[in-house]
Structure formats: C-alpha cells, structure tokens
C-alpha cells in the first residue's frame, strides 16, 4: 500500500458555522419506521435484533457530525454500513426518519419543495458511483444539464460547461457520448456536471469504486488537486480505507448505521476507538499517516540551528528520510519554535505501533 498523505492544512476555525450540521440523524426502512428512533428500547437494539423484532432496517442510527467549511469530510465503512443512505439524507434524496440536518445553519428538513430544489441546484451537488450520466446526451450537454435544469440560457450554459470540461481534463471530448468514454472519463464527466453548478459542497458517493486501481489513483489525485485549487467543501463516501486516509481531513468510520469513530486519519490510525477500528487499520502503513507531532519527544532542543527542521504536520516517513540521512535526531519546528525532537527509537516505535504501549506503562 503506497500511501502519500499530502501535508495537511491547519484545521479550520472550529467556531465558524459548519457547512453541514447533522444531529441525531436516523433513517429507518420498514413498517412503522417512525416509531423506532423515538423508542429508547428499540433505538438501542443492534440491527439484526431490530429487524427480527419490528421488521425494520435501521440504515442510519443516531448519527451526529459537523462538516466544516473547506474540509474534506470522509464517511467510511463497509457495504451495508449505511454510508450511502447517510449522504443521500443530506439533500433529502432519501427522506430522513428523525434528527436534524442544517446547511449553513438552515434547517434542511424544514425546507419546502422549491427551497429544497434550490439547495440541490446551487448549494450541494453529488457525484455518483455509477456516474448517472444521460446516455443520449453528449459530454458537453451532460455537463450543462444541471444548468439547463436551472433555466440557464443555451449559450451561457454551454460556455460555462466548456470551462468545467477543461478543468477536469476532458477537452476535445465534448461531442462524444458517455457510451464512447472509459470509466475514468465518465466519472470526470460526472465530476464536471457537479462542478458546473458551482455548488458550495460536493458530495461524493463512492465515486471511484467502479474504476480500475490506476485510474482510481488518477481520479483521487484529481480530487486532491481540485480541493487544493478551490478549497471547496467535500463530503466523500468510500469503503476504501486507503482512499479515506489519502483524501480525508477528518474521517467518520461507520459500522451498522452508527459512527464508531470520528477523527483525523492520524487519530483513527494512532488511537483506534475499539477493536473493530483497530482491526480495520491494522495493515495501514503507519509511517504514512502518523505525524511527527505524535512521534516527537516534546521539549525544546535547546539549540538555535534546529537540525532537520521538520514541520509538525510532516508524516513519519519524511522524518525517517531526514534522520536516516543525517544519522542524528531531527527537530520538529513550528513558527520558528522547536516543539520537540524525533530520533531513531521514536520513529521505529511509530512504525512498529509500539508507542502506545510504552506510554501506557
């Protein structure tokens, strides 16, 4: 598993209004679904037992999280964990059973039809696993479709679509039809269609699961690039842990409809909340995820030249290179101040996953 985690931006301001604020969200399928979230006894049942008792399936159970402006928020879980249902609840493509959803502080569940359309047209656009393209339209018309629905004039929407097509690297294919494109190209069209409306948030529902591994990596890099260039908020659904770690600023790990852990990739890998998460992240190359901030021995080195001079957000793999080259411990520096020191021993502990046990002792 070759993971390269890009150096992360400092976390955004927590106090600002979150783009999406989800609180106590439930989605239950089945007869008399409404009664399940309100009943504390039923609500606490595991999924299988609930199905046996009521015939209902709780796809999303009491989920709460905030999506901050400008971050990539990843919801990750195995198939059947409720992640796709969750993302559809955000724009009410699936009507939630209970709980609150707010976008920029506005209650989504209270919106009437036209307000909801407005939300879907301008504020949140979605990219789908199997692309969801219209086979009878050309690439350009597919990309312009969202604008067409909004009632944008032909000339203007074509021009705007043209720009987006260029942005996702599909120039020269405008007149092709989806049937004539490869999977990766089709998903670029899907991405372009979502971008064309210039939405505040992009929602991705396992967008790259249907693609070959190499193409998938290309597309992931494309998303990273777009995020770097535009800083658009993204909610990204995936079942692929390496994808989650690569793209996510924060990750919500779901199991059977519940969020079992929510945190940065480093928190998930470094301090799993339970055995399920630990099993999940067991094979992750830790040196690609953990930062030197965790690895370092805190305390000023005392000197002024700070050998090595690693940024606090640098991953352990980078520190290993520096330390191996200089045969000396390296300093971790933030704002010109030394935060701590990493040496062979500390770095090896991270790679071996033994640092926690030592601290516990």
């Amino acid at each position, binding site marked *: 598993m070759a993971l390269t985690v890009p150096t992360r931006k400092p976390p955004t301001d927590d106090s600002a209004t979150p783009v999406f604020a989800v609180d106590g969200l439930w989605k239950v399928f089945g007869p008399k679904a409404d009664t399940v979230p309100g009943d504390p006894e039923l609500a606490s049942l595991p999924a299988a037992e609930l199905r046996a008792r009521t015939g209902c399936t709780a796809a999303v159970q009491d989920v709460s999280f905030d999506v901050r402006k400008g971050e990539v928020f990843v919801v990750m879980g195995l198939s059947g964990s409720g992640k796709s249902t969750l993302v*559809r609840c955000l724009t009410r493509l699936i009507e939630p059973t209970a709980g609150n959803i707010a976008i920029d502080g506005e209650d989504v569940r209270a919106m009437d039809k036209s307000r909801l359309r407005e939300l*879907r047209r301008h504020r949140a656009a979605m990219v*789908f696993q*199997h*692309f969801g393209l*219209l086979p009878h339209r050309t690439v350009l018309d597919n990309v312009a*479709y969202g604008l067409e*629905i909004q009632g944008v004039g032909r000339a203007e929407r074509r021009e705007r679509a043209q720009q987006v097509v260029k942005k996702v690297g599909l120039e020269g294919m405008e007149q092709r039809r989806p049937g004539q494109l490869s999977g990766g190209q089709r998903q670029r069209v899907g991405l372009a*269609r979502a971008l064309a409306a210039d939405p505040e948030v992009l929602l991705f529902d396992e967008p790259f699961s249907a693609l070959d591994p190499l193409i998938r990596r290309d597309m992931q890099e494309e998303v990273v690039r777009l995020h770097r260039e535009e800083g658009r908020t993204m909610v990204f659904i995936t079942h692929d842990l390496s994808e989650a770690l690569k793209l996510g600023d924060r990750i919500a790990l779901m199991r059977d409809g519940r969020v079992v852990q929510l945190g940065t990739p480093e928190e998930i890998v470094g301090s799993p909340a339970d055995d399920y998460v630990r099993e999940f992240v067991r094979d992750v190359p830790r040196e690609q995820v953990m930062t030197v901030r965790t690895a370092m021995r805190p305390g000023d080195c005392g000197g002024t030249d700070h050998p090595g001079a690693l940024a606090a957000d640098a991953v352990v793999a980078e520190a290993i290179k520096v330390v191996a080259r200089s045969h000396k411990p390296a300093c971790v520096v933030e704002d010109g101040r030394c935060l701590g020191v990493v040496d062979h021993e500390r770095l090896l502990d991270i790679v071996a996953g033994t640092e926690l046990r030592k601290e516990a002792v």
Partner: protein
Amino acid sequence: MATVTAPVPRIALPGVLKHRAVHKLLLLALAAAVLVPLANARWASGSWPDALTVDLTDPLTRTSDWIIDNRDSHPLFLYFFGHVSNAVVLSVRAVYLVLLAAGWAGVTAFAGLVAWRVAGVRLALGTAAAFLACGLLGMWVPTMQTLALMVVAVLASVVVGAVLGLAAGLSDRMDRILRPVLDTMQVLPAFAYLLPVVLVFGIGVPAAVLATVVYAAPPMARLTSLGLRGADKEVLEAVESLGSTARQRLLTARIPLARKELLLGLNQTIMMALSMAVIASVIGAGGLGDRVYQALASVDVGAALAAGIPIVLLAVVLDRVTGAAGDGTPGAGRSGRAQWAYALGATLVVAVAARLLGRLDWPDAWVLNIAEPVNRAVDWMTAHLYSGVPVVGGTADWAGHFTTWVLDPVRDGLQGLPWWSVLLIVAALAWVIGTWQTALTAVLAMATIGVLGVWKPSLDTLSQVLAAVAVTLVLGFAIGITAARSDRFERLLRPVLDVFQTMPQFVYLIPVVALFGVGRAPAVAAAVVYALPAVVRITTQGLRQVDQAAMESARSLGATSGQQIRQVQLPLARPALLLAVNQGVVLVLAVVIIGGLVGGGALGYDVVFGLAQGDLATGLVAGAAIVCLGLMLDRVTQPTERRAKKGA
C-alpha cells in the same frame, strides 16, 4: 454426472419439486372425491349439463337490435360513437386521398427516403422495391387502402398506448390495475375483438380501425410502462440530485432513457396493426385483406397470393425499418433535420413530376398477372400431388389421414369425457405448472364456456389446438435443439424465422389452402406454421443461454452430447421451454380460430357466420368462448414467471 446405480434413490431437488406437485394433485383429488359424486348425481351427463347453461341468445339479439334501431337517434350514439365513427372515416379517407394524390411514384419515393434516413441505403432500396412490387402485382389501390387504415390505426394506437403506458409507468396503482388487463389482452386471438366493435359500430371502416386500435395499443402501453420503469435508478437519482422538477425528470431523462422500449413498442404496434387490419377485412376493412378474404372464399389461390404477397412485403418492410430505428443511434442533430427536409422536398418533386406526367395511377400495362399462372400451378398440384402419389401419398391424403387419425379421435375423446373431468384435468395441469390462482382462473374460464352453451364447438376448437400444439412442439423442440447445437444451422435458420415471424396470421391460410384444400387439417397446418418460428426461437435462445460453466463442467466430466442435452441443457432451460409451450399455445389458438375461414369450423366459424348473417348473438357468444378458451389455455401453460413479450 454419470449415474451410479444407487440402491436408495436420493432425494434431490427434482424430487422435492415432484413432491410439491404430488401434494397439489392429492389435494385436488380429495376435492374431486367430494365434489364429483355430488355434481354427477345432480347433473349426470357426458357433455355440459343443460341445467347449467344460460341462453344468452335472446338478450344479445335484443341488445343488438336495440343498437341497430337506435344508432341514429340515441344521444350516446349521436354525440359520442357517431363522432368517433365520423372522425375515423374522415381521417382514413383523408390519408387515402393524400396517398392517391402523391401517386405511386410519390409514395414509393417517400417510403424509400424515410427508410434511407432511418435505416440506411439497403433497406431504402428494399422498401422502394417492395412498393413497386405491390404495383406490379396490380394491388396498388388495395395496398393504399390498407396503408391508409394502418396510418390512422397506428397513430391512434400509439397515442392511446403511450398515454396508458405513461400512466402505468408513473403510477404504481395504475400499473397494478392495467398490467393484468394488458397481459390478458395480449393472449387473446384477434377474432375475439371483432364482434363487440361490430355490435357498436356496425360493419365498416370505423369498426375495423377501432378493432385494430384495441388489438395494437397494448404492446405500446406495455413497453412504454416497461421503459419508464426500467430506467437506470442512479441516473434518475442523479437527475433529482441536480434539483430537477418532476416534469423535467420526465421529459429530459425518463422518456429519452426509454427510447429503445418506445421504438420497440412502435414496431410491435405496427406489426399487430397490420395483422389486425388484414383480419379486419371480415368486418369491412377493405384493402388487401379483403382481396385475400374474397379469394379464399372462392378458393382462388392465385388471387389470394397476388394480394398476400403485398401484405408480406409490407410487413417485412415495416418491421425492418422500425426495427432499425430502435437499434440505431439517435438522429444526428441539425444535419439530420436538414436531411429530413431534403427527403420531404424530393418526395414533393417526384409527386409533382408524376402528376404533371399524368402518371398518378399505376399504369395497367405494368401489371403482372400472377393469378392465372398460380392457379394453373395449383390445378396441376391438385391433379398430381393431392392424392395417389406412389409411396408418400398426396397432400390431401395426408390432410385426410390427419383428420381421421388425429383430429377426430381427439375431438371425440374430449367431447366424450364427462364435463367435470375436463374441468379437473384443466385444474390439475394449471396447478401443477402454475399457482392456485392460475388454476382457478383456468377452471372458471372453462366453466364459463359451458355456461355459455358452446361446450361442444369449444372442445372441437380445443382438439384442433391440442393437435396443432403437439405437432408444433415436437417440430419446434427438434429444430430448436438442432439450432442450439449447430451454429451453421442457426445462421441458415435465422433469416427464415425473421421473415416468418413478421407475417400476419391471415397470410398463412393461403399456402395451406393451396396444399391441403379446405377443412380442419389445413387450419391446423396454418397454426403450426405460424407458431413454429416463435417456439423454435425461444427454445434455441433458452438452450443457448444455459450457463456455460455448467456445460463445461459436464463436458469435463466426460458427458456425451446426449447426456449434456438431457441432464444439463434441458433441465436448466426449463423456464424457456415452458415459455415456448405457452407461446405456442397462444399463437396456435389465434390461427386455429381464423381457420374458421377455411373450413376449420367450430368457434371461428361461428364468429364468421355471425358476422356474415348479421346474427351477432351467435358471434358474440362464440367470441366470449374464444376469450375464455384463450384465458384457460394461457393460464394452464403459464409458468410462475410472466413472459417478457409476445413472439408475433
């Protein structure tokens, strides 16, 4: 899969299935043991007991008389049916006049250009050649009459079908209501639709057009609904996620996504409309069908063939061109529109030129009279092939033998059975193959036949159907299995099947009359020929779609070809084979009924007789019995899964 001679038979899956069938049969036997003595004690009789029949002749005759008396005065007729009738007559006449005004050159040019735009150069040439052949056979005017009727009927069918299909496609409730109705309409023989329409509209063009619409609209409705429901869920979700309104979703996504099904629906509607427009000659449609009908009535095979060939040509051309429209990519935007304009312009030029040259009507000098040589050939056949050919015997001998040795015993056997045992057999068959619902429907349908008082003729028709189905299945399975095993044979067979499957039912009567004369055997022969292609095709497809891995593993275990067929292919293709049986039965019934026109007798004859003598009561009762027989036969052979589409 080599069988080991095990002392104890193992209970495998087939065993369990048999078990279920046995359970059902036991239950039925129990019910029969209670009910049969009771029924037998009260109404002991071989045939359907008179006490249980309801004579509908009087009320039906009164209704029919009342309608005839009030057709010109009652408000329902004045303000509704009258307008419908007038609108139909006017539009058919208008289309007919336009076709005549365009002249043969104009029509041929237009048809060729449309075919060229839709389906390419080869089909365009074929289309033009087909129209010229119609003229050459001296059938230009009847062809235009049939075409005018078709245009109106197809337009109306498409509108009605699309509206019903939209309703069923968008609303689950409508779908639940419409689906069984449409399914049932699709299995009923065309003849069943004639009488009710005639009752209301009288014999004439309006009745013919409306019967055609009723017969041809269901496939459009079914396929429209299927297309709308079959749309890729994720595409619809994506469209919704972009904030579309319901209307936008329908117009920009659902309908375009259903394009293929819609065009297939159009294709099937056109084919069914042609089939019906020809049969409707019995109720005054005129045109090609009428020529065939008249010629058959006087056993003039030459004249029938001269009118039959244009029907076949029309069918093949219409099928190929509309079929190509469904397969092809959507028209290429603006350049496509410009070419359409050119095509229209060219047609206009040709039509005007022909008009100026005074060549509107097909020139008499160009008519090729094939009736006489054909009749001479038929006479020769009658003289030399009918009977007394050494060793093989003649065709009429075959027909005679078939009647004496097969049809008569089956009919007498069926009519000799006590009435309750027929019901029991129907129930047992339907229940073993299908569910208790299908069995109940089948028994009720059969009982209705008895109540209507047409037990005997219905069993006569049934005997013809059974004989024809048996022959069809033996031939069809044999050919189908051969075709599934040999690619070369299938390649040879395919174009033949394609042509045979497009031909209207009526046309099949012509060659059998030439070969076998009139009677019940020719009707059965026509039915076999008509149903055979569908059975062969479904069998071949079913066998070919058998899981390749299963076949490969059987081969790797050293199974012989015979073992492969018996132990792997046939069991795995069971659903397809059952479907083939069901289709075979439905198609055979349709033609056996029409066989009433060539001496098939029984129910089909009653309908024709009722129409010819103005005795609508007899005809209506026979029509109702046909409906019941169709229902019964369909339900008896209906596997749990519903078939996808009709083979015709």
